[in-house]
């Protein structure tokens, strides 16, 4: 009996391991390999090893630099805004009050929606003629003429940021609310008794408990936003004139629209490296996992 059970865990995990090797680990290696080749989906005859050429081309590609900048401002504005609003909502929703179940259900709902559906709901807000936003803002007297929110060079990026914010806040609220609930109620009482105000309670009581979650959720979100394409592809397609092309969108367009697999793979490798450096330095700076948290 003892002898037999030694093999059980390996047998149980075998299918998963096989799938992970086939469809996750091998592809990751393959991206690196392909990035040194010329590979076009439509012209397979010209496929060849070309060394560093793809990388050299990337560094002199103006679209790449613009995409890098867009990725940066996309990730920073999304993660920061989502965290601030998410934390605010979580702090309110943590209290027990009438109707808190209903409010939670409503406010968390966008979390479950697909990027395409969110694009659609927001496209219906943003459309120049059919969209409702222009009408609302005109009624409030904020703008005088209808604006093509996603087609205009100056407004496209921030229109996307707002739509993505709508979808992203609930993730932070959910995660932070869950971790706020692990804070023992007595600690708040003690802090109150010592004369601590709301800010002091947040800083000295809640914060130590949610720090770990905060670090992890911001990191996961950073990766997630860096890679998120569905909303951008559907609302603007990366335009107008690359104003909303992030690295991930550039990669997706290079792969799907142009079928340029070699160049796309090189873009993927660079994105991966950026994320890796970002994640490693972030975890190090925040001192994550010092007390054996993983």
């Amino acid at each position: 009996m003892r002898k037999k059970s030694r093999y059980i865990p390996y047998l149980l995990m075998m299918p998963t391991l096989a799938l992970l090797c086939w469809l996750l680990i091998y592809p990751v290696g393959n991206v690196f390999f392909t990035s040194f080749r010329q590979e076009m989906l439509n012209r397979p005859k010209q496929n060849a090893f070309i060394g560093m050429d793809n990388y050299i081309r990337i560094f002199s590609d103006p679209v790449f630099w613009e995409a890098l900048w867009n990725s940066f401002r996309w990730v920073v504005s999304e993660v920061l805004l989502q965290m601030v609003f998410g934390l605010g909502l979580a702090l309110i929703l943590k209290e027990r009050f009438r109707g808190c179940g209903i409010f939670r259900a409503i406010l968390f709902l966008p979390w479950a929606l697909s990027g395409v559906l969110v694009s659609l709901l927001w496209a219906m807000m943003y459309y120049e003629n059919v969209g409702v936003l222009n009408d609302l803002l005109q009624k409030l007297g904020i703008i005088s003429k209808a604006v093509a929110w996603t087609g205009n060079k100056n407004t496209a990026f921030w229109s996307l940021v707002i739509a993505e914010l709508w979808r992203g806040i609930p993730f932070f609220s959910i995660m932070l609310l869950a971790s706020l609930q692990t804070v023992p109620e007595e600690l708040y009482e003690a802090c109150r008794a010592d004369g601590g105000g709301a800010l002091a309670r947040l800083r000295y009581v809640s914060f130590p408990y949610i720090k770990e979650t905060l670090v992890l959720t911001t990191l996961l979100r950073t990766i997630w936003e860096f890679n998120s394409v569905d909303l951008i592809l559907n609302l603007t397609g990366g335009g107008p004139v690359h104003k909303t092309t992030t690295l991930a969108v550039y990669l997706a367009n290079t792969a799907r629209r142009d079928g340029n697999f070699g160049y796309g793979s090189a873009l993927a490798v660079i994105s991966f490296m950026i994320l890796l450096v970002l994640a490693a330095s972030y975890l190090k700076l925040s001192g994550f996992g010092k007390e054996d948290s993983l």
Partner: protein
Amino acid sequence: MRSYLNRKKRVQTFMYLVLILAAVWTLFPFYWTFVTSLKESAEIGAKPISYWPRLLTVENYVQAWKTGGFSGYFRNSLKVALISTFFTVMLSAMDGYALARFQFKGKTFFLLLLLCTQFFPTAMLIIPLFKIYNGAHLINNHWSLILTYTVFHIPFNAALMRSFISGISPSLEEAAMVDGCGRFQAVIHVLFPLLLPGIAAVAAYSFISCWNEYLYALMFVSSDSKYTIPVGLSMTIGEYSINYGQLCAGSMIALIPIILLFMYVQKYMVSGLGAGAIKG
């Protein structure tokens, strides 16, 4: 005491105000799409914009379902999501059981591997996966999606299953095994019923993600009759003359399963998922 009560009241009013604002901000896009889906096509483009349909009609739904292709998209999405969910639940339960109930060589390595996979950018893998499926003749086949979704959902759900199973005392299964049950029977008859809430959570979570996935579905499936809902919707947005009413009706159709499932997982999410899953 009086000022304390007054203060409390003020704080509460402020809280409700913030919550109501947040609720309006969250619900308004739903409301607008829903209202538009019930309008006649002539009214949708008309000025001034009407915030409630002058004439209610379900014509858009009938059209989206019959001629807009949404019955097909719906069926495809359902098929892909259900099969992927089935495999995800099976495999992650097996992994979770192995990780929760056994000590073995390579356990730490396996856990680390699961964690690492969470950090791979999905966009990075569209090219190599396309090549793999192309070689296996799975392009424009739903199995390419089912395989991809299963692989991408296992790591997180295996960690979730592990924490669920760890929370159930092994003494019950051991007692059953001492009584002459085989390990497999002990798992089926003793562990499985206790694990059902966990399985439901994993299944709901994985179904929602499969139902929503867009990039791979766009990349690997190329014919209209095989599109899943997100791809079908996005193709409709991209058309030159958009039929807004039909588009809005289509998104409402896509929303129904999500809302139903969400109502179930939502309560569960905050208490179970946040703390348990992250710490693995």
